[in-house]
């Protein structure tokens, strides 16, 4: 049993990462405290209803935005398509709360749009005209849809592109007009992919905290947050979080099922770019207007406004706090990225050396955290860590030492652990996929040349998967830079990351002053999109 060390440590690490989920389930099964009963009989049903309608509305709106764009980009010839098909994913880099703030600022009663309308028509007060209120569930749905539609767009576009041209041509020869061919062949074939995209949208919506909190739309996410920070009840927060966990599981299984069907439907046959419908005149104008409109509303306009504020308020924003919090974010994200990649290499290698189906299980366990909404995860992290903090202090007291205080939840430990649990999946995925590309015969030949497992990993595997390691670390780093809800709940007192710093400005309705850090977050978020685009272009 030479490799027992590998096995024990990979299982150990994986179990540590599943601790938050286990703790959540455990806590949720404990007897219910009064606060939860109280919430359950008063506001919780409303929150559940809000969450349900919000998820549904965001799914609908992102379908409305993403599907036509995907079809146009996959099937039609349009001028500037090379740029447009990339630009359409840009909104993904925009934190939704920033978009929410920008449009509230623009469209509120005191904003420039309504002011202009009042000036134009000579209205004096809001009673004289109707303007759709933005700080509502509907407004939140539109804002979230605007930044989440790229999921639907990307998956649907790939699906359309991977459909064999022959299938479309076949349907035409069997008497279908282009529209009938879309309805009877393209759309049904893309349906599993669209479902995957929609379930991702649903999960992101469920996890969203910034937008709904800013709009004061109470959902399960804000309920978890308020229950913990307002009532201080971990038990009640855990129970609400457990409800969300159920929904996530449901969405995940929907995603998995769709992916399976996707494999049957998308056998990646040749897609030659010859069916490209040539749009002319008004249709072309409408198509271009539609796509560029999405890009403008979802990214260009908010980004331009941020840039304007950043320049205008530069002197106020360029201060010690900005540097301090940037350094915090940088340090924290780098630390977590390194830990995550170490863990991923560890798990990946351990699986590689054993090569059995069950040895992949630690990787799956370690990846579970990614599906958890940030708030849910934070509660899951807090349960075991506060327990341990108490235990440590009790132990110190018993040993007659001075109480060390909250060494876990009061320091960066909690937030780093939370991030690690949430984003380890990306590192594990990156390492796993690149190690799977290394042919097993290389392992055999290395062993026949007289190398032990350690030397083989160091001299063969690691050099070959260097790119995967880098990509995985980068992805984790970026996600850590952007993460908001978990940071809000897990950060130590007086500790800020760039995201929480920006969010503070948003909730104080002073984003003008926080535009500079906001731009940093957006720019960091753009990096993975460039990667994504490159891999897509290589594909087609």
């Amino acid at each position, binding site marked *: 049993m030479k490799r027992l060390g590998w096995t024990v440590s990979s299982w150990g690490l994986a179990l540590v990462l599943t601790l938050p989920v286990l703790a959540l389930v455990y806590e949720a099964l404990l007897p219910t405290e009064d606060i939860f009963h109280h919430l359950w009989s008063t506001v919780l049903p409303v929150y559940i209803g809000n969450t349900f309608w919000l998820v549904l509305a965001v799914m609908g709106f992102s379908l409305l935005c993403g599907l036509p764009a995907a079809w146009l980009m996959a099937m039609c010839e349009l001028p500037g398509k090379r740029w447009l098909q990339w630009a359409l994913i840009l909104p993904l880099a925009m934190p939704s709360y920033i978009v929410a703030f920008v449009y509230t600022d623009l469209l509120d009663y005191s904003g420039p749009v309504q002011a202009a309308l009042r000036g134009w028509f000579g209205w004096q007060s809001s009673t004289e005209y109707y303007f759709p209120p933005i700080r509502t569930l509907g407004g939140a749905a539109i804002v979230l849809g605007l930044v989440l539609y790229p999921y639907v767009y990307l998956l649907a576009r790939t699906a359309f592109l991977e459909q*064999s041209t022959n299938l479309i*041509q076949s349907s035409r*020869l*069997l*008497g279908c007009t282009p529209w009938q061919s879309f309805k009877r062949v393209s759309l049904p074939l893309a349906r599993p992919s669209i479902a995957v995209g929609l379930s991702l949208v649903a999960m992101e919506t469920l996890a969203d905290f910034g937008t709904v909190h800013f709009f004061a739309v109470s959902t399960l996410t804000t309920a978890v947050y308020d229950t913990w920070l307002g009532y201080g009840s971990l038990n009640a927060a855990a129970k609400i979080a457990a409800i969300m966990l159920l929904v996530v599981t449901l969405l995940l299984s929907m995603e998995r099922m769709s992916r399976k069907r996707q494999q049957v439907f998308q056998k990646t046959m040749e897609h030659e770019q010859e*069916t490209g419908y040539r749009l002319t005149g008004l249709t072309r104008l409408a198509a271009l207007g539609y796509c560029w409109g999405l890009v403008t509303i979802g990214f260009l306009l908010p980004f331009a406004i941020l840039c304007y504020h950043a320049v205008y308020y530069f002197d106020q924003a360029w201060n010690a706090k900005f540097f301090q919090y940037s350094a915090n974010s940088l340090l924290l994200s780098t630390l977590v990225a390194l830990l995550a990649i170490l863990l991923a290499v560890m798990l990946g290698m351990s699986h590689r050396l054993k090569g059995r189906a069950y040895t992949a299980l630690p990787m799956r366990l370690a990846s579970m955290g990614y599906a958890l909404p940030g708030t849910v995860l934070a509660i899951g992290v807090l349960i075991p860590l506060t327990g341990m903090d108490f235990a440590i202090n009790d132990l110190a007291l018993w040993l007659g030492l001075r109480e060390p205080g909250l060494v876990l939840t009061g320091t960066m430990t909690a937030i780093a652990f939370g991030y690690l649990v949430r984003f380890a999946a990306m590192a594990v995925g990156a390492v796993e996929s690149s190690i799977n590309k290394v042919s097993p015969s290389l392992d055999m030949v290395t062993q026949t040349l007289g190398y032990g497992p350690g030397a083989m990993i160091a001299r063969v595997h690691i050099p070959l998967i260097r790119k995967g390691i880098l990509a995985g670390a980068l992805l984790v780093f970026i996600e850590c830079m952007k993460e908001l809800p978990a940071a809000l709940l897990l950060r130590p007192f007086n500790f800020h990351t760039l995201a929480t710093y920006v969010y503070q400005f948003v909730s104080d309705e002073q984003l003008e002053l926080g535009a500079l850090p906001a731009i940093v977050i957006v720019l960091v978020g753009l990096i993975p999109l460039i990667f994504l685009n490159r891999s897509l272009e290589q594909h087609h």
Partner: protein
Amino acid sequence: MAALDIKGICCSYNGKPILDNLSLSVAENEIMCLLGASGCGKTTLLKAVAGLLPVSRGEICIHDRQVNGPGVALVPELRNIGMIFQDYALFPHLTVADNVAFGLANKEKNKTRIRARIAEALELVNLAELGGRYPHQLSGGQQQRVAIARALICQPRLMLLDEPFSNIDTQVRMRLIGEIRALLKGQGISAIFVTHSKEEAFAFSDKLALFRAGQIEQVGRPQTLYQYPDSRFVADFLGLANYVSGQVLDSHSVSTPFGRVDSVSALGQAAGTHGQLLLRPRQIQLTLAEQGNGRVLEQQFLGSHTRCLVECQGVRLEVSINEPLPAVSQVNVSVAPHTLTFFPDAEVSSRQTEPMRKLG
């Protein structure tokens, strides 16, 4: 009335001309094969006929109805053409029966009649039992038959087949070719069929059009093209060929390094013309003779026949014989009596633009 009449069409893809002033005619209930190396424009022609690719110049008429021409470009769905794709292009989200019924949606609303026609079409291709399955549950040959049933149900009068047999196992390929040929003939359908395999072309077609770089090199019955090719390109494409340089003696004979060779019918070349005599491996006969004029250099036993490389008066010849000869044998080389094909030298030099195997 021709089933298909193509007059001087030009097609280009990404600014590169693929078809260049090409004309072709297919008669009623005739199976025409487009044969050529990949990338020579066969599939482009097929797609142009189907209306799936724009035609920049020229005319296409299907049963005397102009579908492409100056200012005319009929959309594919109105051409009433059946097409079988290389990968069969079955809709993976529909059952076999729904796939077959796909084209009826715009034509037939009566459910009972639709069911009857599906059953009839599946019966025709011997798949009556499999209507409930999905395409991925079928073998390649079955998938192809579904594709054929799907096309037949719309009662097309012209069928286009793009490399239909390339994904079929070699063991069943020839049987399937026979079945489908009988089916098309029985239904009175004209067909154009694209392939790069000469065996498939010979077995499936009534007429053969050999493609070369966007143009048709020669059209005719398969045997004619094989036996009396117009050019060395056609000769080489359709099978192994030996070329022996020689000079025309009179209307019926040619002098070669290994003697005088007679033709069964007139050569049509002036006496004294220098050129190359085409000899297929089967047209050369070997007889064992210790004092023979040829020497066997190499033999390969291939089962149904034996490939034999012979040197005779400084000329190397590929010969196909039934049984292997004893090792290191001296043989007499003679030419089986047939109508000779002789390429005068001037023509060879103008035609020969691709490097060709030199045996003579």
